[in-house]
């Protein structure tokens, strides 16, 4: 009984510690620079939307968001489109070296992205792709395709092979079976895979910043370049941070029921 009465303490503390930085970010985004730098306040004394106004009116700021969203969506579409057939092959067919190839895919995620920065920069320069959205989208495939393959393979292996065979017996051709029967079956898996691709591409900074200069500059890069003559613009930076969280929060809402399975790479 005594134990049950205080059982709420630990989760509450945990959530407070988790949410504190986010609260502080939101808090700062509604303050003026003067208030941020001068006094300690738990909530804005003079709430202002000026910081947000700066972001939504200054092309240097809002273009960052547009660029990020363009290459992130491109990357998600490419990653999932490439991973779907690959995952199907891994889940349904046995071929020479299939297990090794499957594991090798994951090892791509084990190298720090910094390792790939130099070769990527050289290669993309050679092909004239520097500062384009597609360059970042393709570069991020290096991490996202293996991840999407692993997640989708897990979901696909949960579908009995007999469903495929029943469809073939019914007369379905492979493409028709895949789009009409199979993809709806693993819709949640596709959603989760897309979410993970979105997230990783959205938060990745190093490669995105190296491969872009102005036209495709991501928001995270914009945020690192806000030091002006008058010092850091704290309020605007905080507002930009808040806006960066929103797309991820939106996407996570749609796949919230499948996220745990996704983190287990579909193997639950």
């Amino acid at each position, binding site marked *: 009984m005594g134990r049950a009465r205080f059982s709420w303490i630990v989760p509450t503390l945990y959530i407070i510690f988790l949410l504190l930085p986010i609260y502080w970010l939101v808090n700062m985004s509604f303050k003026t620079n003067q208030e941020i730098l001068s006094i300690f306040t738990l909530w804005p004394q003079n709430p202002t939307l000026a910081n947000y106004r700066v972001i939504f009116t200054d092309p240097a700021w809002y273009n960052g968001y547009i660029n990020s969203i363009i290459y992130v969506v491109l990357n998600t579409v490419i990653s999932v489109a490439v991973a779907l057939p690959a995952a199907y092959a891994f889940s349904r067919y046995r071929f020479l070296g299939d297990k090794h190839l499957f594991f090798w895919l994951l090892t791509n995620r084990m190298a720090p992205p910094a390792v790939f920065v130099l070769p990527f920069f050289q290669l993309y320069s050679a092909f004239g792709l520097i500062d384009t959205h597609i360059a970042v989208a393709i570069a991020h495939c290096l991490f996202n395709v293996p991840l999407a393959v692993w997640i989708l393979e897990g979901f696909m292996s949960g579908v009995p092979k007999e469903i495929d*065979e*029943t469809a073939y017996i*019914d*007369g379905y051709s492979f493409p028709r079976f895949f789009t009409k029967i199979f993809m709806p079956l693993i819709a949640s898996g596709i959603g989760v895979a897309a979410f993970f691709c979105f997230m990783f591409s959205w938060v990745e900074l190093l490669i995105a910043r190296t491969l872009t200069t102005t036209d495709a500059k991501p928001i995270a890069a914009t945020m690192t370049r806000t030091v002006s003559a008058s010092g850091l613009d704290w309020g605007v930076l905080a507002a930009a941070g808040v806006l960066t969280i929103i797309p991820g929060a939106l996407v996570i809402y749609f796949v919230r029921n499948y996220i745990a399975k996704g983190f287990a790479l579909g193997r639950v």
Partner: protein
Amino acid sequence: MLELRDVTKVVGRETHIRGVSMALERGSLNVLLGPTRSGKTSLMRLMAGLDRPASGDILMDGKSVVGVPVQKRNVAMVYQQFINYPTLTVYENIASPLRVAGRDKATIEAEVRKAAALLRLEPYLERTPLELSGGQQQRTALARALVKGADLVLLDEPLANLDYKLREELRAELPKIFAESGTIFVYATTEPSEALLLGGNTATLSEGRVTQYGPTPEVFRNPVDLVTARTFSDPPLNMLKVTKRGDRFHGPQDTAIAAPASAMALADGTYVLGFRPHHLYLDPPGPQAVALKARVAVTEITGSESFVHLDHGGERWVALAHGVRSIEVDEDLTVYLDPQRLFVFGSDWLLAAAPALRSAA
């Protein structure tokens, strides 16, 4: 007519099907009977065209179909697991083969309604399969197989995962439902009683080989060899190794059994006697009965029947007795054999003599 000619299937180093030859007539009901891993499913997959045989030929109406992809063959298959398309409604599940074939809307509607009425799925057409009970899910799969009007319908233990009552019900209906369509109907089962209830022809399988194929009662009464007899008996056939000298079989423990008329002409030598569990009696069945001593190992009571597992010499026997018997484990029991009901197998395991038909059963 579906004809298999010396079909063999090898997976890795294992041979799943070895040298199977059989011919299935149109409009016939064929039961594949065998224990698990005897090759029933492998054989069905070969017939359907899901797998290619390693050697041998499969002909449909005289034409080889080995290279024909499964989409081009007119077959239907129902699995032991309830396999439907979970994202489609029951209606769309049943309509699926017709939609792929590009039939017009009215035909599809009529066919689906007809099949749904036959399998009593009408109230559930708008639900998805996962909202149905197991029996209804399997009926959906059966309805899909039915609407297709396939030349070859393969049912792989379709009732194994259903509860007892549903199984009884569906088993009685299945042959009727598919009979009028004039298809080749193949039904795999592990249960001898199911084969007998379905009738038709039975092929007994053992370790990837078809040991016998013929009319079901014929296979049951005159199994060609010991393996077939054991496959077609549940619990398996009891066995007793004996030596024939003159008109008597001599077994271990000084057993002497008078040879039945059917076995009288057999040459002296070693034989194996086979008798079904319900022909091993706990009470003497008549004056000709032979008494044997056995020790009780296990007893199982099902309600109307008792299974008594007995040890006799090195053999484990099962006796099936009516009613509930109170028999203690490790008790020494006198059991009885009726020489008229004995199968006699030679030392090569081939049938030497079968019990005569009982004139009045």
